[in-house]
């Protein structure tokens, strides 16, 4: 089949909805799974926390010649993951991290993180990174099959959510990275100044 026909078949139904499933038991199995993309089930963030996450995400992956974390929808991803995916331990570490960041800003600047200039926000986030640097993972496990690190510190958690949320997003995958779902070949290619990672 030609690339164009393949792309068309993708648009027509390859990417699939439950309506296309002909097997009732298969449809049931699918519907029973992680449906978190449909909406957040268990909202956990206050208004201030939500705004902090929004700004923090953009500090980690900023707008440059391509859109940044906010344009990619990362804040919603963070909120969904913190609310619905995190374990209680992870959520506690994450929310305490936001509080610690806020306390640090009040202690140094007598202002909320939200009310200081960007330079100071970057410095505040860098201090969180420094705090995280001394953390040692408890159970390394087998290095080829790493487990989720439940006790990882706030900065590591935040960075992971932003990075995963960004590069898995449509903006990250298609504008920041190169998306080529139908390469039609495998071969070596030269790296140029324009070369980006494949997201596909």
């Amino acid at each position, binding site marked *: 089949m030609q690339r164009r026909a393949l792309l068309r078949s993708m648009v027509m139904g390859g990417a699939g909805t439950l309506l296309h499933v002909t097997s009732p038991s298969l449809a049931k199995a699918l519907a029973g799974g992680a449906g978190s993309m449909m909406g957040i089930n268990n909202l956990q963030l206050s208004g201030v926390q939500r705004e902090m996450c929004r700004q923090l995400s953009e500090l980690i992956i900023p707008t440059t010649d391509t859109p940044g974390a906010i344009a990619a929808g990362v804040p919603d991803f963070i909120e969904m993951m913190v609310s619905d995916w995190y374990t209680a331990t992870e959520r506690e570490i994450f929310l305490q991290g936001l509080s610690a960041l806020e306390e640090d800003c009040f202690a140094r600047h007598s202002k909320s993180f939200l009310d200081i200039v960007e330079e100071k926000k970057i410095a505040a986030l860098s201090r969180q990174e420094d705090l995280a640097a001394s953390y040692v993972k408890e159970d390394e496990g087998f290095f080829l099959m790493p487990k989720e690190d439940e006790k990882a510190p706030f900065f590591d958690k935040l960075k992971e959510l932003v990075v995963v949320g960004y590069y898995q997003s449509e903006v990250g*995958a298609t504008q920041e990275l190169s998306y080529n779902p139908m390469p039609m070949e495998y071969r070596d290619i030269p790296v140029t100044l324009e070369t980006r990672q494949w997201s596909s």
Partner: protein
Amino acid sequence: MIEQTDFDAIVVGSGMSGGWAAKELCEAGLKVLVLERGSMVRHGQDYITEHTPPWKIPLGGKKPRELYERDYPVQSQVFSFNETTRHFFNNDRLNPYSYDEKKPFEWRRADVVGGRSLLWSRQVYRFSDLDFEANKRDGHGIDWPIRYKDIAPWYSYVESFIGVSGEKLGLAHLPDGEFQKPMPLNVVERAVKYSIERDYPERNLTIGRCAVQTEAKNGRGSCHYCGPCDRGCSVAAVFSSVGVTLPAAERTGNMTLRSDSVVEGIDYDQETGKASAVRVIDANSQERKRYTGKLIFLCASTVASTQILLNSKSPSFPNGLANRSGVLGHYLMDHATGGGAVGMMPGHLDSYTVGNRPTGVYIPRFRNLQKKGGRESGVDFLRGYGYQGKALRLGWQGTFKQTKGFGKDLKNALRRPGPWLMFMGAFVEQLPKKQNRMFLDDSKKDRFGIPQVAFDASFGDNEARMQTDAEQQARKMLKAAGAVSLKSFDIKTSPGMAIHEMGTARMGNDPAESVLNKWNQAHDVPNLFITDGACMTSSSCVNPSLTYMALTARAVDHAVKLFKSGVI
């Protein structure tokens, strides 16, 4: 409409071997019922996650942990298990089995039409006489009742139909097949190949022989290198029974495919001395049915086929159907996959790759290749191992944690392809041992009232010594090829993890110590054939699916001759 309940042949299982049994029996003109315990998957239309873009994958690709721990503790460890393939897998909570805590067994299963042929790593290698003579040579297990010449034409027949890409090497111990053009090695793999073949003239590195077409043939497309074959391939470039053999069977008009049909047991007719019927429980309604057939092919997978036989007790067969020898359930084997090495490969930063190649590299067995005696000098184990691996440039997933900082610098760093990494992992042959077994635990029933499977199996000293050698050799080869930050490993794994479980109803010449004859026909029940992994007499170190398919086609050819001549 009254449902048809009498058939010329009944095939239990619709995966790698069941699909072949169905195709061959149907094409021979027999009316065939195919029974599958899992739910229906139709080619193309049920590949609901094919080409799902990254942003449509739930949770950014993170695992829904609670769900996996509750329902998929075993299956979620499979390399091809994720939210885009979960609907093809077995639910562990609903389908329990047991083992001694100190000897875990990983029973990795699909639960759909097509079985694991949808989810496999697509690697296809021929056994050779080094494998078929191995038991006889070193005295472990019993001799195979066949040799390479018996199966060679069937390998060719199967390869031509399924579409195999690969490179001919001219090695006696890894025979060449009917290959479509090989997929390319990348620049780092070529460098490692050069280094290994320079240092060790008797070793080879080649592209993994895989059941993915590189040429549009057989009414199917060629690979478009999108990557995740296990979501389903609507152009059927990759082989699966759903995409290839079952449609061929369907085209004859002779196949009735019944999904959601759990086989409880097989009835034996004492007067005729044959298997007469298959008892089925509907997975949804729990309704019981009985189908009669003149030929019965068990292709339900190594463990499931033997479970069915062990659960088919009668006055003639108090220990399970076709089990007069008492070896049914014993001599369970897998491959040990806990040895290998991974390292970063400096340089080559001016090269990247386009496309997702659905295979890796293969380093064929190089230990104990001589014909006489079991082991070569300086080697402290019998048999051998091969490696599978690949080189790739790391993506953001593999580098972001090590990339310090945040902001523009982080973003610019993650934008570019990461450094090259080369991985190689060994597949170690397991010796056949009687104490490695599966059996039925009559005290524990599943949701259909069928006794649960229990395992008592572990890898032994020979596998452990061989794996240690595999680690050391992998380390040496990668180091010589220039790897840095080299990590080698030799970890204890559990049987089942390679998903190459086989044995339990082995072939052999002597009915007193084997279940099947050289035609995969039960010694004790002439119209019963078992052609999945259960039939295996030894495990070789190569991926076994191709051998199951070739043995199936060969067994059907024989069975049809007996059927048409009225012998069975």
